[in-house]
């Protein structure tokens, strides 16, 4: 009876106080655990607690679950759960025509409409019936009834509405109720725990009672790679990465941060997880955090810091010092919507220019981008390896999407992590004598006979003394640049995600657009188009094979969430015609839209 569907996209919307993120994460963990692949997208209001019931206070959680590997949270939703009318108003455009709207009618009453700014005579649900399948349930009442004997307060009871809905969704999407209950029991104890189970069951049974079998869907399990899994967010993954760095380097990492959305979670995760060898430090500001990190690197730890646009702007001077002193340092930019304070909770890829060029003087440093949560841990290890083994600051670009989206993560075999080997620290060699890769020694305080002085003034070749000499300045500028260019020795092969080495169209992307681009390209390939997707992990220096790889394609599209930054950089290095596909709206690409825009290019050609 239950319909089998290979992909299912669900969007849950309601007030930010409704417990939607919790409900969502429960569901996706269950799905992942039962063998579906899942990807998520969270959407928070900018306010901490925007006025309840307003459109600006809506919190959203979208996920896709599928019976094969997927890369994005899906475009239009098959199902939308609306906790209230504001949630429906904000997100209705995302529900597929004919899709299922599951409406919690208690959130569609006169008062809710008024708060959401609708006229009293508006009939949003009646309107919805004409375009969608609609299930209307007064979940508040249902929850209240289920909990009538619970000692919880009325307010607490109505908060359990998300559990009732969880129950119904569990039934609708064929997840295991016992597993879910067990999971809930692990999290909630006492009266609250019991109430949650009761509410959950009420929702679960509703489906059967109401005979909503026609709405039931099952997404078949795929054969996931054996291993132990958990769902993780990008911030968690970066924290794991820093922990792995300390382990692989055999030295401590000082993580110096200053809170800023959406970078703060890295600090929270490190403070909570307390991994060996990683010391988290909340500094007084971003300038202090980057300079403290640099101090730590001088002292023989690896300094790391993270921020978002405004904070990264403040760190520019410190990064220049790191370049001049040639000390290792990790700087993570969790990008958000800019310029200025911009859109703090939204995503964007508009800080690439700043990463490349945002320092005075000739101050190059390697730049990497994280493409998905699942790789962030390994990217951090690679970034640290480049930083330490080349004695250079490394910038790692993440963004709000990666920070907040969750995906199932197979716990890696730690034996497979690369070793990070600090450069020689032979005190017989001069502090700025270079090895065959142009790397100077890392002689750290405490090392007998290694005393030397570093600073921001131009440095004399080899000795490291201050030098105002013209020829030396030119030489050092070139040597520093050459050393940074040489980090390509750490690169793997060019990351061709999908597609042949020649074809009609090459799509080049970077960072968190990975999922949407890959999904779009796969769809086009399924439709018979010769499209290839390359997703750059290294933005500076560029992969040495990139431009020659481009030669295999008649058209090249560069896709990014800004007004044209990577494409500008590429154009300065190639005379190939490059086509721009971008947007700067604070929103991720939709795979479908990308697919359509790419198809357009294919047919135009």
């Amino acid at each position: 009876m239950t319909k089998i569907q290979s992909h299912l996209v669900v969007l849950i919307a309601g007030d930010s106080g409704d417990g939607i993120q919790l409900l969502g994460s429960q569901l996706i963990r269950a799905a992942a655990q039962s063998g579906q692949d899942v990807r998520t997208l969270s959407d928070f209001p900018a306010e901490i607690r925007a006025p309840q019931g307003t459109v600006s206070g809506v919190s959203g959680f979208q996920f896709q679950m599928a019976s094969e590997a997927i890369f994005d949270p899906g475009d239009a939703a098959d199902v939308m759960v609306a906790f209230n009318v504001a949630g429906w108003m904000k997100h209705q455009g995302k529900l597929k025509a004919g899709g299922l709207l599951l409406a919690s009618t208690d959130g569609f009453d006169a008062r809710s409409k008024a708060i959401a700014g609708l006229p009293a005579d508006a009939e949003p649900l009646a309107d919805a019936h004409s375009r969608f399948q609609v299930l209307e349930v007064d979940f508040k009442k249902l929850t209240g009834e289920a909990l009538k004997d619970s000692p919880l307060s009325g307010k607490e009871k109505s908060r359990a509405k998300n559990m009732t809905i969880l129950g119904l969704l569990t039934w609708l999407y064929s997840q295991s109720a016992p597993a879910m209950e067990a999971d809930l029991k692990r999290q909630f104890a006492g009266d609250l725990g019991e109430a949650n189970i009761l509410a959950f069951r009420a929702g679960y049974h509703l489906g059967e009672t109401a005979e909503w079998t026609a709405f039931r869907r099952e997404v078949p399990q795929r054969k996931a790679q054996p291993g132990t899994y958990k769902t993780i967010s990008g911030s968690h993954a970066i924290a794991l990465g820093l922990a792995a760095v300390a382990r692989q380097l055999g030295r401590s990492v000082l993580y110096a941060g200053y809170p800023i959305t959406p970078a703060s979670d890295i600090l929270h995760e490190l403070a909570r997880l307390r991994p060996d060898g990683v010391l988290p430090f909340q500094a007084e500001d971003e300038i202090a955090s980057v300079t403290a990190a640099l101090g730590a690197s001088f002292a023989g730890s690896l300094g790391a810091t993270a921020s978002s646009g405004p904070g990264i702007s403040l760190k520019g001077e410190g990064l220049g010092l790191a370049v001049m002193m040639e000390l290792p340092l990790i700087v993570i930019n969790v990008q958000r919507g800019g310029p200025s304070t911009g859109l703090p909770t939204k995503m964007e890829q508009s800080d690439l220019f700043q990463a490349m060029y945002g320092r005075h003087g000739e101050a190059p440093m390697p730049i990497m981008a994280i493409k998905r949560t699942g790789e962030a841990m390994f990217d951090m290890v690679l970034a640290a390896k480049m930083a330490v083994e080349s004695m250079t600051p490394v910038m790692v670009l993440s963004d709000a999407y990666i920070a907040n989206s969750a995906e199932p993560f197979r716990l890696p075999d730690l034996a497979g992590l690369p070793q990070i080997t600090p450069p020689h620290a032979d005190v017989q060699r001069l502090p700025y004598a270079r090895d065959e890769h142009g790397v100077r020694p890392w002689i750290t305080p405490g090392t007998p006979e290694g005393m030397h002085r570093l600073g921001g003034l131009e440095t004399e070749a080899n000795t490291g003394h201050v030098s105002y000499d013209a020829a030396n300045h030119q030489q050092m500028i070139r040597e520093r640049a050459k050393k940074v260019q040489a980090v390509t020795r750490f690169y793997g092969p060019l990351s061709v995600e999908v597609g042949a080495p020649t074809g009609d169209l090459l799509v080049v992307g970077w960072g968190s657009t990975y999922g949407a681009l890959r999904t779009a390209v796969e769809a086009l390939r399924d439709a018979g188009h010769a499209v290839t997707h390359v997703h750059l992990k290294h933005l500076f220096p560029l992969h040495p094979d990139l431009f020659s790889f481009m030669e295999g394609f008649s058209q090249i599209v560069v896709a990014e969430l800004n007004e044209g930054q990577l494409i500008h950089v590429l154009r300065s290095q190639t005379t190939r015609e490059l086509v721009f596909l971008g947007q700067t709206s604070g929103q991720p690409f939709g795979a479908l839209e990308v697919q359509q825009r790419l198809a357009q290019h294919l047919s135009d050609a």
Partner: protein
Amino acid sequence: MKSGKDFLSDQEVRWCPGCGDYSVLKQFTEVLAQMDADPANTVVVSGIGCASRLPYYVNAYGMHSLHGRAPAVATGIKLANPSLDVWIITGDGDALSIGGNHLIHALRRNVGVPILLFNNEIYGLTKGQYSPTSRAGAISKSTPLGSIDHPVNPQTLALGAGATFLARSMDRHPAHLREMMTRAKAHGGSALLEIYQNCNVFHDGAFEAFTDKKTQSDHAIFLEHGQPITFGVDHDKALWLDGQTVRIVSTMERPLSECWIHDETDAMKGFALARMTGEVRPFGVLYREDRPIFEAQVHAAHAQTRSLEEVLALGRTWTVE
């Protein structure tokens, strides 16, 4: 025994001839020698300014960092390796203008580092603009008709910020300067040592009343813990705390026992001393208190950590066979 010379690097010292910085460097290296410091374990961190060139001249590890940021750099160093002997070298502009925020936060955290603040009441390296400590009316390149700003008092600022050690000395009293450096280091936590330093090029004689042997005794009070606060030729003058008001009295007229006995551990009295910015000013340790040292506390609190394996296993996991 090491001598001061052992702590000089091979770099040519390049301050202006006659600059007070020379004396501070000399006393600093001698103190390092007296302490039998290990050059390999010593790190001298500075910002930018004439004073901040000092690390280049010291045979130790050194970092000439960014204007105003030495306290943050030093905090990072201390967190990374609390066993290093870290010193901060800074100027009045470096510490109190651009770097004010890092200074107050290092002080309140009580990071274990002595801070030698070379106060010459001018921007030396940038050739003579007024600084936050310049007295109102100061004529400088940026204030040809006299400055307007009410100056920062580094001592009250530090005390207000929660500093655990405040002291003042001067370039031209080597023995006192060495003693204060020694005490600042011995304090263990953040120790602010303000050093009156003559910039003979852009602000010559700023502290002459206090540093010149002829006038010193009438203007400079050398504090000693537990001793009456006296000054003047033959110690004929003393301070007396009349309620909350500081008065100068004659020791002829009032017995020493009734005068103000210096108590380094009294914050209120420290504040009274710190506020003395007139013709008579105190030198020595104005105030100190014991408080746990930041980096030690951080490491103690962070003692219980988890292996990467344990961290990975945290949270809800499931296994696919």
